[in-house]
């Protein structure tokens, strides 16, 4: 497992509080689902190897105000972990507590402090208005009627649906429905949010503003602990304080996304040039000072974007840039870039040796 020291503090009021006990504590969690086999199949092949466990000895903490991303290939165990924390699945071994309540022993207490955002927009009443949907869930959350009315208005206001609160949900766009799901999650003033791909149905612009909203509202204003399963680079790098890479149910890597990227993939830079195969760059690659990752044309074939990994970080990059410029390589732009999430996961999974 690759571990990078957790960088829980990121500046700002919504940051994690390292001195407080974690709101989410998972210790050596283990879950194996029973295999779904027919009776005839069991009689035919009684000694078939049981399926791989979905979660294997997973341990992690999430503090108030902290966003932790769950990454990994499909079937890695992200959703299973979220569902265990949401009290929908019972683990076989290990413990998981939320705000001090055990998810197996005290599920009712857990449900009072969590707000899972696992279901999709079909879990809304499409023939009712947003306001009516929230009124319903205020009752299910057992809020007193007087308080429920103000919470519904507040929640709609927070997600920017105050003006369309009386409109039928069936007429909403995917983004509006996603916002309504968040409003529903916020109704009970939860301390822990469990989000499963919260921006999957949003376009890039809506997803960006949605992430800003999540960070500002949940992290900064409300100080919630947030666990978010995602496949999006932006969520892992911009939204999450730390990420946990899962592979076949095990923690393959844990740490801050950018730092994990640097430790697993090196420092990555992109250079805009008209000569992607310039001799000076080739010499540096041969000398092992840079590792070429990719080169892409901008369309008309004149300018190229060359991505390189440079061991040694910004100081080494500065020297390398100076060498290239001195050798006459035309460079219009040179910048540090985030490693693609897919590569990061691949590398973490590959290093954990259980792919």
């Amino acid at each position, binding site marked *: 497992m690759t571990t990078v020291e957790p960088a829980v503090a990121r500046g700002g009021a919504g940051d994690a509080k390292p001195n407080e006990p974690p709101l989410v504590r998972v210790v050596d969690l283990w879950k194996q689902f029973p295999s779904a086999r027919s009776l005839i199949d069991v009689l035919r092949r009684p000694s078939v190897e049981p399926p791989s466990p979905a979660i294997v000895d997973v341990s992690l903490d999430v503090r108030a105000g902290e966003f932790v991303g769950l990454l990994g290939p499909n079937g890695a165990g992200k959703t299973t972990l979220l569902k265990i924390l949401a009290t929908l699945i019972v683990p076989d071994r290990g413990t998981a507590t939320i705000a001090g309540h055990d998810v197996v022993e005290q599920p009712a207490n857990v449900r009072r402090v969590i707000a899972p955002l696992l*279901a999709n927009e079909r879990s*809304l009443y499409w023939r*009712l208005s947003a306001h009516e949907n929230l009124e319903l869930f205020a009752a299910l959350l057992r809020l007193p009627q007087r308080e429920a009315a103000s919470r519904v208005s507040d929640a709609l206001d927070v997600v920017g649906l105050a003006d369309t609160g009386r409109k039928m949900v069936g007429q909403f766009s995917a983004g509006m429905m996603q916002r309504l799901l968040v409003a529903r999650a916020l109704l009970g003033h939860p301390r822990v949010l469990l989000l499963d791909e919260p921006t999957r149905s949003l376009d890039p612009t809506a997803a960006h503003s949605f992430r800003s909203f999540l960070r500002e509202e949940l992290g900064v204003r409300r100080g919630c602990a947030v666990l978010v399963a995602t496949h999006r680079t932006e969520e892992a790098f911009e939204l999450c304080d730390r990420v946990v890479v899962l592979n076949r149910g095990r923690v393959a890597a844990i740490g801050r996304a950018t730092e994990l990227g640097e430790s697993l993939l090196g420092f990555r830079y992109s250079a805009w040039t008209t000569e992607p195969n310039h001799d000076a760059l080739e010499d540096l690659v041969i000398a092992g000072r840079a590792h070429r990752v990719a080169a892409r044309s901008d369309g008309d074939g004149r300018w190229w974007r060359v991505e390189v990994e440079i061991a040694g970080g910004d100081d080494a990059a500065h020297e390398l840039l100076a060498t290239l410029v001195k050798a006459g390589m035309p460079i219009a732009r040179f910048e540090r870039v985030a490693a693609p999430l897919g590569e990061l996961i691949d590398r973490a999974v590959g290093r954990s040796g259980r792919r």
Partner: protein
Amino acid sequence: MSTQAALALTRASWRTAKSYRVSFALSFASLITTIIPVYFVANALQPFMASVIADEGREYFGFVLLGTAMLTLVSPAVSSFASAVSGGLSSGFFEALLVTPTPLPALLAGQTGYAFAWAVVRLVLLIIAGTLLGVDIHWLRLPEGLLITSLVVVAYCGVGLLAAAFVVSFRTNAAIPQAVLVLSTLLGGVYFPTSVLPPIVSPLSEWLPLTPGLRALRQTLLLGYPLSTVGGDLIQLVGLTTVSMLVGVLALRWSFGYARRAGSLAQY
């Protein structure tokens, strides 16, 4: 607070149903068009049926009316739990409900509340229409009638919970609601007294809560007998209700435990 949650769910279903205006209006209209033909057919058969139904009533129309009315309540009791769970599982709505602090019984009551409320409205309309068409009901026996009706409905709720347990565990209701409804309609004394059933199916008929329930209901409401006279049927009904609810509740509890272990509670 659980009642508030259940009522909120029922209200949401009511608002949804109300939003389909044409369908809502047609369902009222169909009720009226159902009762009129029954009235004429029952009157035509009265000379032949009078002696057959003598133990449970004098007019065949009243006999059929109570049978139909009871079936109106039995239908949601048997079907609505499994339908609610199945629909909720496939849409993900059930998952959203299960992670709220509202207990499962309140969620199930709320999810099926509208179906029951609608059935009660239909029943009341049927009884009113029947009374207007001349059915002689002993209104003083209404409390006894309500007790018997409640027992029958609770007994069938047990079957409904068993069907819901099958849906939670195996994603199928195993045709339990359909089978029980068909058997109850044919062998439970809805359209003819169970005394005319062939001896080979008579014992089976006595295992259906509808059989003693309808017998007792008709004797109290149509013939005006006191509860003490229908004691045998009442004891039989209480026994069936107890067993049915016990089986239903235990099966549902087991199925939720199994689904939580198997991870299938929130699969859709």
